[in-house]
């Protein structure tokens, strides 16, 4: 595919972030035997994919995309995913944890912690092992969460995908240490130095497609624990007396729909979203129910192999 010419020239700041990310993505292609790009369908993944396309033009990125499907993503996410893969002409691998399906794990009855552990963390490890990937790109950013602020760009994972904060390698300049032994792997975060603002500014400047769920629209929702949950299909059990109502809502982050809180909003296009974000007083992770279990819960999940 060709990349649409940008709507507006990049600010020096975005141009610098873009160049840094492209260099990181190229480094992985040059240094690893079998890399893969984790594609989670969200805005960060969209930016990462766009950067990968830029990095290897006029060729295509020399690695496949992979989505870990918990089977609980919004339907619009799945159709967007398939359309994007087709549009960019890259191989898309989709993996779902068969053990989790057999055990009937789901975000509602099993709880968010177990669901995440089995359907995301375990599923990811299974998929990486199955295909023998030695490097995996993720779209995580350092500004997202406290334990991410210290994450390396090239994050070392020992056997069994374990993450030990004390075993992380110092990263000086842009001289990344890409050396690993059999059974070890690296998670690579090309967007480490981007903020949520940078991501949206870049999406606007480069005209990058995003899932329509980011834009406000009347959607069927119910109020749960102070946040709006969308009734995306019949699997969401309604409590007695609970009836879905149509509200103008949108999502700041996307995940499994029963775990993704919507915000009431009228922002139906990119400039409105950016304006709304600049006025916002809550962080994007606030809509993620899986992080609130405990203060240091992200650090714990990462030790277990989560992205």
């Amino acid at each position, binding site marked *: 595919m060709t*990349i649409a*010419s*940008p709507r507006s020239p990049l*600010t*020096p*700041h*975005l*141009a*610098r*972030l*873009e*160049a*840094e990310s*492209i*260099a990181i993505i*190229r480094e992985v*292609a*040059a240094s690893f035997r079998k890399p893969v790009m984790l594609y989670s369908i969200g805005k960060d993944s969209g930016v990462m994919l766009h950067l990968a*396309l*830029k*990095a*290897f*033009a*006029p*060729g*295509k990125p020399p690695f496949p995309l992979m989505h870990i499907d918990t089977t609980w993503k919004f339907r619009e996410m799945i159709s967007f995913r398939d359309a994007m893969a087709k549009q960019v002409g890259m191989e898309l691998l989709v993996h779902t944890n068969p053990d989790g399906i057999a055990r009937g794990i789901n975000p509602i009855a099993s709880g968010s912690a177990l669901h995440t552990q089995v359907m995301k963390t375990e599923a990811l490890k299974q998929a990486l092992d199955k295909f023998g990937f030695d490097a995996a790109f993720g779209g995580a950013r*350092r*500004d997202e969460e*406290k*334990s991410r*602020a*210290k994450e390396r760009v090239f994050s070392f994972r020992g056997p069994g995908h374990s993450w030990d*904060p004390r075993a*992380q*390698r*110092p*990263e*000086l*300049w*842009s*001289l990344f*240490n890409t*050396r690993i032994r059999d059974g070890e792997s690296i998670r690579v975060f090309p967007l480490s*130095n981007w*903020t949520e*603002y*940078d991501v949206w*500014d870049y999406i606007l400047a480069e005209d990058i497609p995003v899932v329509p769920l980011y834009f406000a629209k009347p959607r069927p929702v119910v109020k749960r624990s102070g946040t709006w949950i969308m009734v995306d299909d019949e699997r969401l059990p309604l409590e007695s007396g609970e009836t879905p109502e149509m509200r103008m809502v949108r999502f700041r982050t996307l995940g499994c729909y029963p775990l993704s809180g919507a915000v009431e909003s009228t922002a139906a296009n990119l400039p409105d979203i950016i304006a709304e*974000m*600049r*006025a*916002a*007083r*809550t*962080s994007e*992770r*606030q809509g993620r129910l899986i992080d609130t279990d405990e*203060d*240091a819960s992200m*650090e714990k999940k990462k030790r277990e192999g989560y992205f």
Partner: protein
Amino acid sequence: MAAPAQHELLRFLTCGSVDDGKSTLIGRLLYDSQLIFEDTLATIAKDSRKHGTTGEDIDLALLVDGLEAERQQGITIDVAYRFFATPRRSFIVADTPGHEQYTRNMATGASNASLAVILIDARKGVLTQTRRHSFICSLLGIRDIVVAVNKIDLVNFDEATFDRIVGDYVTFAAELGFRSIVPIPISARFGDNVTAKSGNTPWYHGPTLLAHLEGVDVSQDLSAKPFRFPVQWVNRPNLDFRGFAGTIASGTVAPGDQVVVAASGKATRVARIVTAEGDLDRAEAGQAVTLTLADEVDVARGDVLARPAERPAVADQFAAHLLWMDEEPMLPGRGYLMRIGNVWTPCSVTSIRHRVDVNTLEQHAARRLALNEIGFCNFSAGQAVPFDPYEENRATGAFILVDRFTNRTAGAGMIAYPLRRASNIHQEHFTIDKASRAALTGNRPIVLWFTGLSGSGKSTIANIVEQALHRAGRATYALDGDNIRHGLCRDLGFTAEDRVENIRRVGEVAKLMVDAGMIVMCSFISPFRAERRMVRDLLGAGEFVEVFVDTPIEDCIARDPKGLYAKAQAGQIKNFTGIDSPYEPPEAPELHIRTAGRAPEDCAAEVLEKLRAAGVRC
């Protein structure tokens, strides 16, 4: 919240120890620039009551102390990156710990920063740690410094105190080569002169910290420097396109420019500057582009393109500052992997010229570098590599050293200058080579490297093997640890440093003998994997046969043919392998001989069998 920043990004580093209020300062910058979200603030308010040190006030330091262990101990033990933006600029702050044991973390943060904020506690003034922080900043190439005299509220906003501290600092920093030093009196806890001018310091007429950071010009003017393009990846999507992808390290480039491949000297011209959005007329430092060249010259990842008249140095020996970052000390002679630009090559320190005391800046003699120590060393690399002095170009003058076994990033280097030795001593080529020498004797030249504990039977087995080879008419020689130490290595002792040098010399001698067409038996305890690996790398493929003579230490002690274990156990011999010095067994030897309960002849037969399999007639 702020509109998109039109300014260039500023990456800066904050240096200070736990009590200097560094985390509080960063928390204050984030808080005052309104980058703290309500839900984050709620978490912090909760944490303040649990871990905080500020009573009922919100402890801003908790905003930035990330990992759980750190929050509980109240210290910052890693580098954390923080992000904030104002309408004028975007910022990335590297928050690094200040204690001496975290020198490596500070250097990590400094390596990508262009400015440092050095905190000084107004009550304490310039301390040893202030000197250390400033030295590391200087070494890592930071040229612009802010001296934030913090806790000015605790000295009653006293101008004379501030002036004295600033005077002390400027005097001491004179030799560190900073371009600008901007002192600012602040109170991170109460916000004085951080983002708003303080009414408590009417005598201070300079900018607030934030105003200074927003306006300061730290450009290193990379585009004005000589063109350097380290090739990162060769882009060959089809037979019609061959592009060289990379990030321009310095200078500018345009189609038609003459360029040379630094290492080979091959010249060509730039044909196109390719990007996803189309070709460019010009590109400059910092841009990630793909170049195509006018001629089919040999270019690969690791090569550096430069202009013919402005080439980088190309050498395999150079002098550099080295910061050691690994628990395992750096020993001269030991082999590491070096990454410089996009090249990976074996590398070792040939000598430590001096170690720098990071607190006093004094130079001391040293035979090793321990964790967090900095030395000025001579290096020898496995191939000639292109580079610039670090002072002139951070991107092409920096390198890392990686441990060959653990793959840990063990050292960070900053090149000072090439060593001329390498360029003035050229290899002579003789017509008669290894193959012709070997053909004369019908030998297959090879090194049998017997490693194992003292008294394990290495020499005994080697002796039997050599006799058998001799009978078969093969040209042999035996290098034995004890014999070598009476001559070639009689100046060496048994410290780790000397053991490395001992094996290096033996390896070079063995290599010469292989070149002479011989079969060489080497019997050395050679306790460290790194040195055995070093010898292996000296030789060609298949020429090094590692024989692990595996005898349980109890058997060696019982046998003790030279009475050495008895002496070692009595404390009369220091650094004795197996007693008070480690033995690292081979992970994948060509031959693993377990001697327990076997006759030496039996073990030797196993070695001979291996030799026959390798093509030695015996």
